[in-house]
């Protein structure tokens, strides 16, 4: 079954505080959705809950992906279904090279899907190809994962992981934050190159700028834990002028 991501009346708390207050969202296969919203509206929480990060309590509602009930699955099982999260703050893993990390990830995913390990030479070829399209120097592949990477390098490295792991749904959690204009363009080009009929994106961002480069099919506004407005790319442009004031005061 491939009907994409379906979220119904999702409620999530951290401790006593309710962060998401009934989210309804459907991301069909092959479509690019953007979620915008002010700080603290629950955007990152939504991204984390979809991908299964511990520490959140789901108090109601459901998330399904291609017909699978996602909330019952471990993070790695969700990854095997083709869910990918590009982190807002990618963490460092000292001593583990980029190549080694990605090879382990690729082979774990293949194992979970009942496929054989990828031949090391074929893997390296794939990796070099993808790194080139993202304008990443080859020596970055041999460096330790995110150790000593600049902000832009970390985010580009997330895009590299996305390109290599080829997910069905990629969630970009404020991938544009902390990037200069050139880096945003490179990241956006990386995403655009991967837009495909069998792949959808959920792009979370504060700013419209990223959406100038990654033109979304649907734009949602998240405020106070609810989706308060849905529209097309024009909605994002309007927000750039008016800001989020109308949503933050209304509630």
């Amino acid at each position, binding site marked *: 079954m491939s009907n994409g991501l379906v979220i119904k009346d999702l409620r999530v708390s951290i401790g006593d505080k309710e962060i998401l207050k009934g989210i309804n969202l459907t991301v069909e296969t092959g479509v690019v959705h953007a979620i915008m919203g002010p700080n603290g509206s629950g955007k990152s929480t939504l991204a984390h809950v979809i991908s299964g990060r*511990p520490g959140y309590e789901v108090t109601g509602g459901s998330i399904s992906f291609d017909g699978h009930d996602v909330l019952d699955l471990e993070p790695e099982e969700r*990854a095997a279904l083709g869910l990918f999260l590009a982190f807002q703050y990618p*963490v460092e*893993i*000292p001593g583990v090279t980029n190549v080694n990390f990605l090879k382990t990830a690729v082979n774990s995913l293949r194992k979970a899907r009942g496929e054989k390990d990828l031949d090391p030479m074929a893997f390296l070829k794939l990796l070099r190809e993808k790194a080139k399209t993202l304008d990443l120097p080859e020596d970055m592949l041999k460096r330790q994962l995110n150790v000593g990477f600049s902000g832009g390098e970390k985010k580009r490295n997330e895009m590299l*992981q996305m390109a290599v792991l080829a997910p069905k749904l990629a969630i970009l959690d404020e991938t544009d934050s902390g990037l200069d204009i050139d880096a945003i363009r490179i990241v956006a080009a990386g995403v655009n190159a991967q837009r495909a009929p069998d792949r959808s994106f959920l792009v979370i961002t504060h700013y419209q700028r990223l959406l100038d480069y990654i033109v979304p099919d649907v734009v949602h506004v998240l405020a106070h834990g609810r989706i308060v407005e849905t529209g097309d790319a024009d909605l994002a442009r309007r927000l750039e002028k008016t800001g989020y004031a109308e949503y933050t005061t209304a509630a």
Partner: protein
Amino acid sequence: MIHIGKNTRSTIVSKGIAAGRSDNTYRGLVRVLAGAEGARNYSQCDSLLIGDKCGAHTVPYIESRTPFSTLEHEATTARISDDQLFLCRQRGLSSEEAVALIVNGFCKEVLQNLPMEFAVEAQKLVGISLEGSVG
């Protein structure tokens, strides 16, 4: 480590891993005898903690009988963070694979200096002995 001759050099690299309720202690003596002028030692002790009920302790002993020696000691302690684990699992690794990957990264500096056959064994051993340490 005992320095006897002039201008002798040594390096100690210790990597300790503590999981569950275990504690890990490094004790090491570096002794420089009176005649060992210009001796140099560098000791590095890194500890990795898995879980929140384990500990790491570093007790370096240094005895120098000559004022003309240089002895350095450095110690670090790190914990496998939830963020690191989640990153690995989001990319498809099971939590055990994730811990093994992170731990092997931590020990790499030592393991890569071992003879090939032993390095492979050691790597597997690390994987086995950590089974079930996160959960």
